[in-house]
Each structure stands twice: as structure tokens, then as C-alpha cells.
């Protein structure tokens, strides 16, 4: 079974703090993704990566950066957290095959005070 794990289930941070969200997958998937989920807005893609050290902006990259130093690990960084970044953050991964579905982690509920 594919396993995607995220470093924290719940996180509370203060405005202006630097925040790291980590994601690890164990299936040697090439692609990894970071989404945020907000009520009424669905899942919106922040960044994705198709290989080590490669990244592409998604639909809402502002205020975020990412890092992929190893194939199995994809980090999302909030350089200076703001209250409008309070959200559910979901990591996903899949193979490069065109129809391969994405496998999601359990999510991190981030609250920025």
C-alpha cells in the first residue's frame, strides 16, 4: 500500500513565524504535490515537483516555497506565516504515468494566530 505521511496533524503558529510542513512518501513516486483545502474552494494546488530539486508553481504559490532534496521528501515552507494561511494542507504523490491517481497524506491543519 502506498503511504504518504505528513509531519504534523495539527500545528499552531504565530503571525510572522517561519513554518515547515514535511511530507514523505514510500513508493518511489516521481511527482509530489502540495495543496490547501478551504471550505467552498476545494483543493488548490500550491506547488508540485516532478523530480528531485525540480519544482513548478501551482495556482496559488504566493507566500509559499518548497524544497525537494530527496525523492521521497517534499517540504512546504511558509516564509512568514499570515492568518490567511490558516488552512488544511494536503500532500500527495504519484508516478509519472498519465493516468496514475494521486495518493494523499492525512493532512496538516495549520492555524496561524
Amino acid at each position, binding site marked *: 500500500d502506498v503511504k504518504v505521511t505528513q509531519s504534523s496533524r495539527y500545528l499552531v503558529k504565530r503571525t510572522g513565524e517561519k513554518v515547515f510542513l514535511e511530507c514523505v512518501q514510500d513508493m518511489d513516486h516521481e511527482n509530489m504535490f502540495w*495543496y490547501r483545502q478551504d471550505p467552498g474552494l*476545494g*483543493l*488548490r494546488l500550491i506547488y508540485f515537483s516532478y523530480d528531485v530539486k525540480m519544482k513548478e508553481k*501551482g495556482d496559488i504559490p504566493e507566500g509559499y516555497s518548497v524544497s525537494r532534496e530527496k525523492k521521497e521528501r517534499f517540504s512546504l515552507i511558509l516564509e512568514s506565516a499570515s492568518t490567511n494561511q490558516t488552512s488544511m494542507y494536503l500532500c500527495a504523490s*504519484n508516478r509519472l504515468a498519465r493516468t496514475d*491517481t494521486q*495518493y*494523499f497524506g492525512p*493532512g496538516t491543519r495549520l492555524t496561524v494566530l
Partner: protein
Amino acid sequence: DQQVKQNSPSLSVQEGRISILNCDYTNSMFDYFLWYKKYPAEGPTFLISISSIKDKNEDGRFTVFLNKSAKHLSLHIVPSQPGDSAVYFCAAKTSGSRLTFGEGTQLTVNP
């Protein structure tokens, strides 16, 4: 702009009846469509998919229908069970790996 739209934020049905969840899209380049199911405090899990060369795909109680001319797809669940209560997201992709998701529909199946 919202390229994938689920116009019903919520749907409530009785156990044993049919649940029909709808999804509309605007991008004619989408050629593969998926439905994901999400329980609270869990990540979405893949449910069923359909390629644009088909108009129907069935997997047990779940059937997805695709109407390309109307740019519309629907998910039918028959019979509905209380354990099906979850948020359902429809998603679409073009030639790349990116998925575009709809807003989600909260399905509640009442015993």
C-alpha cells in the same frame, strides 16, 4: 477562474436510495476525470475515474458518467450507505500530472 465546478455544496439522501453528484467543467482540453472521497481528518482517497474516450465507467456501487458535449460528469452511488457520507471532489486533468479539483460536495446518507 474555476475550471471545475461542483454547484451543490451539499446533498442529503436516504439509505438505500441513489446519490447523484454532479460536476461541470469548462476546459475542453481535460481528457481524464476522477472522483475522490474525503472523510474528516483524513486525506482524499481515489474512488473512480473515466477517460474522455468513454461515457461510462462502473465499479461496484459507483458509476461515473461523462457527457463531453455538455462538459458534465456525474457520480452515481447505488444503493447509498451511511458509510458513504463524506465530501466528494471531482477532478480533471489534461496531458500533464496536475489535477484541477472542484469545490466538493458534502454527501450525507441518512439511516
